[in-house]
């Protein structure tokens, strides 16, 4: 299958997305930010559509929207945003405005499905490079703040008691999350990014008991889903996103079963 250039691009792109989402996802799940990852992907969709409307690159539009809302959310405090029951209504508004922007920009509806569900086959060389560079920036930043980030994510009270600057760490993490969502969504669609941010890390949470195990299991589950999904998509010509979602959900179910048997 690697005889085709687009498959090679798809392979490299999805590998980097799986790596980034696998790592970031561990912290997303520990900090209970799944709802935010979901919201950011919807906001990202609106941003991309806004980009199309203005005639700028959809990636810039996405980054603009997701970063701005991350900063807004951290100034309100994540806890408050999560408690707010109107939040899902607000994020639906973003989907709505995204559709409006697309209509005004005279873009075809396939453009919308591309942003939402990805278009693995349409990844350009420069798109792959963009993704690789931004993934590396995200991973490197995680590396640099790893210790305070893990403390704050797994025991926020203890972290504060021991002098971790929780607020700063929280803001940096939201920015990284916004970047990962935008970059990933740009290439594989916001749906798939959301799946990869939450399910592999949840699988890891069910099975692992140390940081090392959590990170390894999460990245492994993300890579397994992406690679197998890509191959199945190639064989059947069905949407890759469907296969990846299916694989991750099955793995998650299995992980829950294992966890249940272990804990008796």
């Amino acid at each position, binding site marked *: 299958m690697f005889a085709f250039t687009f498959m090679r691009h798809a392979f490299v792109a999805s590998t980097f997305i799986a790596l980034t989402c696998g790592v970031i996802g561990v912290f997303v799940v*520990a900090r*209970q930010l799944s709802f935010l990852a979901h919201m950011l992907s919807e906001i990202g969709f609106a941003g991309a559509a806004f980009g199309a409307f203005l005639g700028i690159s959809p990636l810039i539009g996405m980054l603009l929207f997701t970063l701005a809302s991350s900063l807004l959310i951290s100034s309100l405090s994540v806890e408050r945003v999560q408690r707010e029951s109107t939040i899902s209504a607000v994020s639906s508004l973003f989907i709505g405005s995204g559709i409006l922007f697309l209509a005004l920009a005279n873009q075809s509806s396939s453009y919308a499905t591309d942003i939402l569900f990805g278009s693995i086959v349409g990844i350009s060389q420069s798109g792959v490079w963009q993704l690789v560079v931004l993934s590396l920036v995200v991973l490197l930043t995680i*590396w*640099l703040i*790893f*210790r*305070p980030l*893990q*403390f704050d994510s*797994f*025991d*926020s*009270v*203890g*972290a*504060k*008691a*021991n002098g971790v600057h929780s607020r700063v760490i929280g803001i940096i993490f939201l920015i990284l999350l916004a970047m990962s969502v935008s970059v990933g969504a740009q290439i594989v669609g916001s749906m798939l990014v959301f799946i990869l941010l939450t399910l592999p890390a949840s699988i*890891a*949470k*069910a099975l*692992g*008991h*140390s*940081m*090392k195990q*959590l990170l390894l299991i999460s990245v492994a589950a993300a890579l397994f889903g992406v690679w197998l999904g890509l191959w199945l998509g190639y064989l059947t010509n069905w949407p890759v996103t469907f296969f990846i979602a299916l694989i991750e959900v099955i793995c998650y179910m299995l992980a829950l079963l294992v966890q249940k048997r272990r*804990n008796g």
Partner: protein
Amino acid sequence: MTDPILKVTDLAMSFGEKTVFKNLNFTIDAGEKLALIGHNGAGKSTLVKLLIGLTHPTAGTITRIPLPGHERLRIGYVPQFRNLDADAPLSVASFVALNVGLSWRPWLSHQEKERVTQVLEQTQLTQIKDRPITLTSGGERQRAYLAQALLADPDLLILDEATASMDVDAKVQMMALVDTIVTQQKMALVFVSHDLELTARYTDRYLLISNQQLLTGSSKEVNADSLKGVRL
């Protein structure tokens, strides 16, 4: 040892209109064992948070004096309340290791691993170090919190109601453990509690917050009589 490590002068704290306490003056000496007592809402936890610098006072100053040869006063603090997820994944050992300190390295160095092992041994957690923290008993969990605080190698250890949810035997066991560690490593101790038997047994001096003021005396003398007229 009578070097002061903490000096509090004219300390006052209010939340909006509500004054918790004012004009507190006291010092804590190196190696001293103190009880911090007072009724619910007297301001014990508030005072502790001020001492470690987690919040800032309305008025007054707190001076933390490093021990000779140290850069700063190291404080180990076990907060009164935690908010761990019911299904948090980390094992006891990984949970304790969260406080291993800063480094560019995400993974633990050989030395850091040794220190974690040592602290787990010290707090009698070696046997259950691989168990998820959420599957441990209340007493074991308090020991894990203690171990996490000890990993900072503190000169002053502050326990905010670390024994509150324990049965009588577990309380005494926990405090005997704390006492051994604190004495061995010459730490100062601030033990926040409502249990006057425990404070009499394991601390030398009490600080009592009552009616926004601070009273102090020998821990042995705290009993119902000496506290007459004082709400505890």
